C-alpha cells in the first residue's frame, strides 16, 4: 500500500518536473527574444535605405549596408575620430584601472601595516559613491588644472577604482598564497619586481575580466565625457550619439542613423560573444559571496 502510494507520487513528480521544464523553456525563449529583438531590428534597418525605411518594417535585410556606411563615413559626424577617441580612452582606462587596482589590492593583501584595516574599510565604504555627486567640484578642478577639453581627466582617475580593487582583493584571497611571495623574497627578488613578475601573471584571469568591464564602462560612459569634452574632434561615441539625437533627426537619412547606432553597439557585442564565457562567470566574483 505504502509502496504503491510512493510510486504514484514518483510518476506525479516526474510529470510535474516535465511540465515545469516546458514552462521554463518557453519563458527563457521569450526573454531571450526580448533581449535580442532590438538588435535584430537594428541590424535589419542598418541594411536598408532611407526610402525603404519609410515604407514600413520588413524582417529581411536589404542591400544598402555598404551605402549607408559610406554615407555615414563621409557625413558631418566625425565618427572615426569618435571611435578612435573612445578606443584610446577606454584602453588606457582599462590598463590603468587593472594595473593599479591590482597593486592596491596587493598592498592590502601581502603586507602588515598600521593603516591596513582603515584603508580596506575606507575603500569598501566609498566603493558605491557615484562619480556624479562630485562632478561639480571635478569640473572646477580640471578647469583650474587646465585639463578641460582633454582626455586626461577621463583616464587618470581610473587609477583609483574601488570596485576593481575589491574584485582583485577577492581573487587574491582565493588564489595568491603568501608563501609564494616569501619564496620570491628568499630568492632575492625585490618587492616591486615580485609584484610585476610573479603576482601580475598569476592575476591574469582576474585582470582579463576586469579589463573587459573597465573597458566597456569607459566605452559606454556619457555623463563625464559630455561635461569635459567640448571640441568636435575630441568627442567620444556616446556624445556623438547625443548630438545625433539633439539634431533635427527627421532631416537625417534614417539608414545612416541606424548605421551610427549599429557602429557604436556591434563592436562590443562581437567582443562579448567571443569572450562571453569568461565574462559571465566573472560577474559574481567581485560581489558578495552567497
Amino acid at each position: 500500500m505504502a509502496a504503491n502510494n510512493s510510486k504514484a507520487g514518483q510518476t506525479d513528480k516526474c510529470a510535474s518536473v516535465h511540465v515545469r521544464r516546458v514552462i521554463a523553456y518557453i519563458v527563457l525563449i521569450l526573454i531571450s527574444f526580448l533581449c535580442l529583438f532590438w538588435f535584430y531590428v537594428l541590424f535589419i534597418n542598418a541594411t536598408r535605405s532611407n526610402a525603404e525605411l519609410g515604407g514600413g518594417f520588413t524582417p529581411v535585410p536589404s542591400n544598402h549596408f555598404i551605402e549607408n556606411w559610406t554615407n555615414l563615413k563621409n557625413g558631418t559626424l566625425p565618427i572615426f575620430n569618435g571611435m578612435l577617441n573612445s578606443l584610446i580612452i577606454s584602453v588606457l582606462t582599462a590598463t590603468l584601472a587593472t594595473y593599479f587596482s591590482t597593486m592596491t589590492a596587493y598592498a592590502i593583501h601581502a603586507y602588515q601595516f598600521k593603516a591596513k584595516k582603515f584603508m580596506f574599510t575606507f575603500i569598501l565604504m566609498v566603493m558605491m559613491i557615484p562619480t556624479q555627486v562630485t562632478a561639480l567640484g571635478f569640473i572646477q578642478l580640471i578647469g583650474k588644472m587646465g585639463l578641460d577639453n582633454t582626455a586626461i581627466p577621463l583616464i587618470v582617475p581610473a587609477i583609483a577604482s574601488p570596485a576593481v580593487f575589491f574584485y582583485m582583493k577577492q581573487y587574491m584571497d582565493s588564489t595568491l598564497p603568501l608563501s609564494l611571495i616569501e619564496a620570491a623574497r628568499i630568492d632575492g627578488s625585490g618587492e616591486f619586481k615580485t609584484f610585476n613578475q610573479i603576482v601580475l601573471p598569476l592575476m591574469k584571469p582576474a585582470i582579463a575580466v576586469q579589463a573587459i568591464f573597465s573597458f566597456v564602462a569607459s566605452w559606454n560612459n556619457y555623463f563625464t565625457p559630455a561635461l569635459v569634452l567640448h571640441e568636435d574632434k575630441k568627442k567620444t561615441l556616446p556624445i556623438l550619439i547625443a548630438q545625433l539625437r539633439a539634431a533635427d533627426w527627421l532631416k537625417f537619412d534614417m539608414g545612416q542613423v541606424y548605421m551610427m547606432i549599429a557602429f557604436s553597439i556591434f563592436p562590443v557585442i562581437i567582443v562579448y560573444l567571443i569572450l562571453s564565457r569568461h565574462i559571465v562567470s566573472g560577474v559574481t566574483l567581485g560581489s558578495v559571496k552567497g
Partner: protein
Amino acid sequence: MNKKSKVVRYNKWGYIFLIPFIVTYVVFQLVPLVSTVYNSFFENYRSGLTQIGPNFVGLQNYVTIIQNGDLPTYFANTMIMWVMCFVPQIIISLLLGAWFTDPSLRLKCQQFFKTVIYLPNLIMASAFAMLFFTLFADSGPINSMLMQIGVLDEAYKFMSNVWSVRTLIATMNCLMWFGNTTILLMAGMMGIDTSLFEAAQVDGATATQIFYRITLPLLKPILVYVMITSLIGGLQLFDVPQILTNGTGDPMRSSMTLIMYLNKHLYSKNFGLGGALSVILFIVTGILSLIVYKITVKEED
C-alpha cells in the same frame, strides 16, 4: 631582532604600493567632493550676461532647491521609474535563477541563455536609448509593425505620453540589468547547502514550497544587497532618459531624473544650486552605501 626589522622593511612597501591609489583618490574624488560641498554654501550663477556671486549665503541654496518644488517632482520621477524597473527585474531574476540552479530541471543550453540575458548589460546606454527612440518614433518600425498586424489603426505617439515614456525607460533599464541580477542571485542560490533541498524533498516538499520556505529566506542578505545597489544605480538614472527625451524629460518633465536636473545646473553653471543638489545626493547614496558595506562585511566574516 634582525628578522623583525626586515619584516618592517618589507611592510613599508604596503604604503608605497598604496600611494598611486591614495594620491589619485584624494586629487580626483576627495578634493572635488570638498569643493562641491563648499560651493553649495555660495550663491554663484549667471543671469543673462551678468555673473551673480559667489556670495556666501549659508544654507539658502538647500532651502531654495527643496522649496521650489522641482526636486520632489524629480525625486518622485526617479523613484517611480526605479520601481517600474526593479519589480519586474527581481521577479524575473528570481525565477530564472531558481530554474538555472534547480538540479531536477536539468535545463539545457544554460550557457547560451546566460550569455543572451547578460548581453544588454554591456550595451552603450546612450546608443540603446537612441535605438529605442528611433524604433518607437511615430513613424518608426514598431508602430508600422503594430499597424501591419492590425493591433493599431494609427500610429501611437509613444514619446508624447507620460506613462509610455516612463515605461520605455523602465523597460530599457530592466533589460539592461536583469541579467546581471540573475547571475548574482544564482551565485547566492548555488551557495545554499544542497542537503537542505534534499532533506526538504525527502519530507515531501514541492518545488514552490522549497522556493518560498528555503531558498528565499536564505537568500535574504543577497536580496537586500541587490536591492540597495540597484537603488543606488536607480538614483543615478541618467543616460537613458537624457538621450531618449533629448535632456528635456518631456512630456511635461515627467521623466526628468535627479541626475538630469544636476546635469542642467552643471551646464548652466549654477554652481550654488548644483552643489546643494550634489550634497543631498551624496548624503542619500552615502547612507545607502553604508548599508551595502555592512552587508558585504558581514558576508566576508
